[in-house]
């Protein structure tokens, strides 16, 4: 796992310090969390909001005087839960199947890439991601894009490490097929 500067996070004794470090973490991880979110919910504005919520909710938790031992994993778990809530709150619109979206004349790249210039690689990557099965997509994003360890992913998605490893393996194979096709 790529270290994000802080692995131990309990410094309620020095609020000023915590404040600074939290902002540093924000600067480091906000892009990654946004990226993860936009790839899963295909709505740029909502993804930005959920990313913000992830940080504010985590901060609220810290402000209560709680301690977090692995902040990066905690942030991802918070985001994961927020995304799941988002799915539940709107059963169809946001994460409809690709067929449904295309039927409606919806272009996935438009939403993820709207307003920013995107490379050809990005477009291909997004298309591939959209075609992956949901459970594969999530663990692959966690593993390769967010560079979390299998153990951390297992805790985030609430499955055993074995299950996660198998998903990563099968997902990688599926992704290769999609990319080579």
């Amino acid at each position, binding site marked *: 796992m790529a270290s994000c500067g802080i692995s131990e996070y309990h410094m*309620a004794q020095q*609020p000023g310090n*915590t*404040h600074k470090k*939290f*902002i540093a973490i*924000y*600067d480091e991880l*906000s*892009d990654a969390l*946004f*990226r993860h979110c*936009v*790839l899963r919910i295909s*709505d740029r*504005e*909502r993804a*930005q*909001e959920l*990313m*913000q*919520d992830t*940080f*504010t909710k985590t*901060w*609220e938790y*810290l*402000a*209560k*005087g709680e301690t977090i031992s692995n902040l990066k994993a905690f942030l991802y778990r918070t985001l994961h839960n927020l995304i799941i809530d988002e799915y539940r709150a709107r*059963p*169809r*619109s946001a994460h*409809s199947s690709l067929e*449904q*979206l295309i039927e*409606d*004349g*919806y272009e996935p790249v438009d939403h*993820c*890439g709207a*307003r*920013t210039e*995107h*490379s*050809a*690689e*990005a*477009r*291909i*990557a*997004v298309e*591939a*991601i959209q075609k992956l099965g949901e459970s594969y997509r999530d663990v692959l994003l966690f593993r*390769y*894009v967010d560079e979390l360890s299998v153990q951390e992913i297992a805790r985030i998605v609430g499955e055993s490490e074995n299950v996660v490893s198998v998903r990563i393996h099968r997902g990688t194979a599926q*992704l*290769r097929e999609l*990319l*080579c096709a």
Partner: protein
Amino acid sequence: MDKEFEQFLKGIKDIKLSQKEKELSRTRVVDFMKQHPIKTIATRKQNRARFFETERTLFVSIGKKHILMPLTLIIAILLGGSVSYAAEGAFPGDTLYPIKITVNEGVQNLLAVSAESKAKLQVELANERLKEAEVLVINNRLNAQTQAKVEAQFQSHAEKVQKLVEKIEKEEKGDHRGARVAAEVHANLESVLNAHEDVLVRIKDTSEREDETRALASLILNVRAQGEIASSTNVKFDAAFTTQKTDERMQKGAREKKKSAQNKIEEVKKYISKMEARISAEASAQANTRIVSASEAVVAGDVYMDGKMYRDAFNSYQTAVKIAQEAKLIIEIEKDLKVSNKNKSKVKESEQNDRDSNGGKSNRDERNEEDDDRKSDVQIRTNQNGTTTTGTNLKIQVKTGTSTESHTDDDEEDDDKEDGDEVETEIKVNVGGNSNLNVTGGVQ
């Protein structure tokens, strides 16, 4: 790792927020952090104490209320998070109330990006305003002035919802999402309005003071008017749904709505049975009636479904969700009111005790001693002076503003206190010798 895979990862990493979006988000998060400072256990306790006492007495000494508006901003900047935290529990008429609605809720508004979340927040805030009005009634503080404040705020929230809904309606995110979200927000607003209307009417019926009854009547009229606006615009959304081309899609939409209606009803049923012991029989009866009608609306929807009238089915299910939500809100409001009622009676009780032990004369000073904040304040000052100027009398003057809280005694002195603009209490501390604490009460 092969080439395609590397390219894939490179492509993914190209997705990010624009510089501008990133800065905006950062400001929002940092603002939020300032608003929610890290608390030690001690400050948390103090803040809870502040909820009912300090916020009103500590700041009133500044005096004239009209200079408080610009001052609130300065105070907010100087004291940062702890004030806005304390302001969370403020009500119309309190010193910190302007901070609550400008600073705290302003930050919340900043955090909402899309029109959808902005609209949902405004519904939430309209709900909050009405709850405040109800708490004011319970605490016997609703009068023409506080009612005007609450009502103006409430109306502005409701109007903002209407505007935002219009905006959402125009935003097409494919698949008539705009119209559907707009309908959902509208239904939320309607549930809030209907639930509060019932609660307010119930409160009004038991109200004894005339100005309170009048204030409540005005508020109820306003709530009703907004509710009518909301339900009349719903017709427009029905029209939007008819433009949906395929029956098939409409059928799918209706089926999903049914599912969410059933879920909602289940959820609210559980909630009611969980809360039953803590709420009044009237409220639970009101909620249960609504659950029955919500279930009936689902059955009606099923009939439409069988008749392939998918649009009507959709509307029926939507109504079911709305009614169930109303039931839940009624319970929530009731629960919140009970809590504040309990707090209030606690405060009264302690005031009563003070009066008993002091013959009603210097209960204010006595209460100061109970207050952690001010107690420590006095101690620090005596200590500081004790080291430098021993043997002198130190005067601490505590000015308190007009108070209507606790003086219900019949004797004249207390009446004077209520009428006079300022009450000055003098505490003499003899630092030298036995460090007696000499407490005298005086009236200017």
